[in-house]
């Protein structure tokens, strides 16, 4: 099931939000959540949640703080088993199966400080038993493609916040999994760097399409990066509404987010967020 990291990059992200994937649920990377409930001891975090995501779809999860969006992401990624309901990722239902199809990018970059940038990016390959030289060679191609050439041997501490996040994202890409689970990947960056990184990520996903579940507390970020956005309620989380991002959007972030169609969807999302919180 694993895709090669050097997969063809010509494929464009051209499907409409929420539209059924042409290949159906069996396509590489489709995610289907049915009647999902989850609780920690007495605390109900997710209640009867349904969500569908076609292969190569990009879904944003927004919701108030502490609503359980990160928990939902961990459940999808197979890091936990849900209390009730079913999550199907690429046909896999059990946690280990989902884990094999998902790569998780945590909020902080969590680059290992004792490894160089390229060795951090190549971690998944090393974990699969690829020798160091070969793993570096394969990751180096991505450094070139994603504007990190020349920083392969740098220690994480020598990189800027934005560059660290790029390396962290490459580490997730190199894993070659069909589904990427991104947990507020740019939350720790300053506003300007965050805007740059959003544009960078949009380009990266256009070049190397994957199924993406992106948790964000920023409605604008979610709508700019995703095909569709699910607005979650306060705990226990349920889907208040699911909105399609306006398509097609300008690649320039500033242009895209000031488009009247974009602004109107953003206001609807904000409205839904307020309803779900109240």
């Amino acid at each position, binding site marked *: 099931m694993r895709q090669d990291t050097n997969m063809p990059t010509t494929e464009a992200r051209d499907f409409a939000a929420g539209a059924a994937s042409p290949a159906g649920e069996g396509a590489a990377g489709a995610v289907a959540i049915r009647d999902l409930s989850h609780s920690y001891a007495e605390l109900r975090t997710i209640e009867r949640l349904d969500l569908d995501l076609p292969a190569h779809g990009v879904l944003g999860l927004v919701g108030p703080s502490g609503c359980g969006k990160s928990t939902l992401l961990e459940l999808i990624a197979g890091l936990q088993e849900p209390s009730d309901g079913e999550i199907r990722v690429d046909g896999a239902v059990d946690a280990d199966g989902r884990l094999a199809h998902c790569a*998780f990018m*945590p909020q902080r970059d969590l680059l290992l400080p004792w490894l160089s940038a390229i060795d951090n990016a190549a971690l998944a390959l090393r974990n699969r038993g690829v020798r160091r030289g070969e793993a570096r060679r394969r990751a180096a191609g991505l450094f070139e493609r994603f504007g990190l050439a020349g920083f392969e041997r740098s220690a994480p501490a020598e990189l800027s916040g934005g560059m660290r996040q790029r390396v962290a994202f490459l580490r997730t890409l190199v894993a070659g999994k069909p589904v990427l689970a991104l947990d507020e990947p740019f939350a720790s960056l300053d506003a300007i760097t965050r805007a740059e990184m959003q544009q960078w990520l949009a380009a990266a996903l256009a070049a190397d399409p994957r199924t993406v579940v992106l948790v964000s507390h920023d409605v604008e970020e979610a709508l700019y990066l995703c095909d569709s956005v699910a607005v979650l309620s306060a705990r226990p989380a349920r889907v208040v509404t699911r909105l399609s991002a306006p398509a097609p959007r300008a690649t320039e972030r500033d242009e895209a987010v000031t488009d009247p169609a974009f602004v109107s969807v953003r206001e609807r999302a904000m409205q839904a967020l307020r309803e779900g919180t109240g």
Partner: protein
Amino acid sequence: MKRWLLPSLLLAALIGAWQIAASSGALADLLNLESFVVASPAEIAEALWQSRSLLAENAWVTLKEVLIGFGCAIVAGVGFAIAMHLSETVRLTFQPLIIASQTIPIVVLAPILVIGFGFGIGPILVIIGLICFFPITVNTLDGLASVDPEATKMMRTLDASRGQILRRVEMPSALPYFFSGAKIAVAVAVIGAVFGELAAPDSGLGALIFRDMNQLETARAFAAVAILSAMAILLYAILALAERRIVTWR
């Protein structure tokens, strides 16, 4: 400048005061001792020079004991820390015993060990190992557990096995903690060697101190103490240097 000058000045002042107090007889009066029992820094320095081959011989014996005992404690301590980290059963089973091992008064234990192991290096190594084991194990265990749980999750989705998470994330994270434990351990290792040698006085600086004190060779006993201190400082410095070379990311 401040780093070297101030402590050197303090040390010089203390030694100077000691010299004056000892040679004038004031220190002997104060301690209510005969003046020939009270060694002055000058007499200690003289003893250090005159008995240099005897001191060197015994220092080598003690150093060997410390290095072997400390080495065994590192192997056992790190091994135990990893086993306790990986298995809750092992942790819960051994934790009380490991803490209890620290409450045993070494002074009491030493003669018992001599009865069990006989004279020679055996009981001394057991004592050094026993007192070094605790700081190494406890610190390394803390270090292994200090890893961000998010990093573990990240590694799991990158297909890491339990062993790979241990090797690639937890063990490097634990290194600074291990070094903290080892630095404490190496200082107490020297004390452990002296205790061991007091119980089984064969050779070594501890045995020499014991003999010299009985024979009122106070100056040479203090010379041996000075060498022991220097040994502990040197071993500590070597570890601190190793830490700086290995843990480059801090």
